[in-house]
């Protein structure tokens, strides 16, 4: 399932919703990305995420479908926020559930790597000098995504 929303989410509540009453899940991996106070050498004071409504959901659904094709997942959830976020707030959540831990780990990493290079989101960082900077793409994200080709 794919959810794109402005509101905060609660990783623990999503974990509980997903595993409640299930006895066929052996392994659950969650990845939560949070707004960090430091990036590429500058003090971040807040983050604003812009996205491409419509295309975002489609891309995330393609990424989920690709993960489900590659690994045996009993559950798969992607939540990505947009809008303004304060330090420490959650940005993105990926949960993968499987009978075995190998599949859950690999799928969660894959989802994050592809999401980072394919989902149409853009980060605008406000820093302590009062500037607003569009975050640059990272070479390391592209290298990470190449692992899955």
């Amino acid at each position, binding site marked *: 399932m794919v959810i794109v929303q402005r509101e905060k989410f609660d990783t623990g509540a999503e974990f509980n919703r997903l595993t409640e009453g299930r006895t066929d899940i052996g392994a659950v991996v969650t990845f939560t990305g949070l707004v960090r106070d430091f990036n590429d050498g500058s003090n971040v004071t807040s983050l604003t995420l812009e996205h491409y409504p419509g295309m975002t959901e489609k891309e995330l659904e393609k990424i989920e479908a690709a993960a489900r094709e590659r690994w045996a997942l009993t559950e798969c959830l992607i939540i990505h926020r947009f809008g303004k976020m304060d330090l420490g707030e959650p940005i993105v959540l990926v949960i993968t559930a499987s009978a075995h831990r190998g599949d859950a780990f690999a799928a969660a990493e894959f989802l994050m790597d592809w999401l*980072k290079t394919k989902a149409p989101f853009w980060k605008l960082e406000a820093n302590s000098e009062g500037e607003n900077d569009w975050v640059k793409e990272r070479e390391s994200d592209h290298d990470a995504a190449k692992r899955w080709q």
Partner: protein
Amino acid sequence: MKILYFAWLRSKLGISEEDVTLPGHVTTLYQLIDWLKSRNPAFEEIFQDLSVIRVAIDQEYVTEDIPLGNAREVAFFPPVTGG
């Protein structure tokens, strides 16, 4: 045809979208880009280095010069930085 701009393209241009009617000689993506550039120095500037621009036609990534066909929506944006 609707043209969308995101992130620094949007902030540099000061617009997030526009509706355009293409002249008859504009039938491919690269022709569209050339035509957009020809209208205004701000567009000339943002399309200066196409290696830093990503394109989606009708919400699907496009990486080469393809015919626009019946495309309703063309979006220009920088490499993505979400997650």
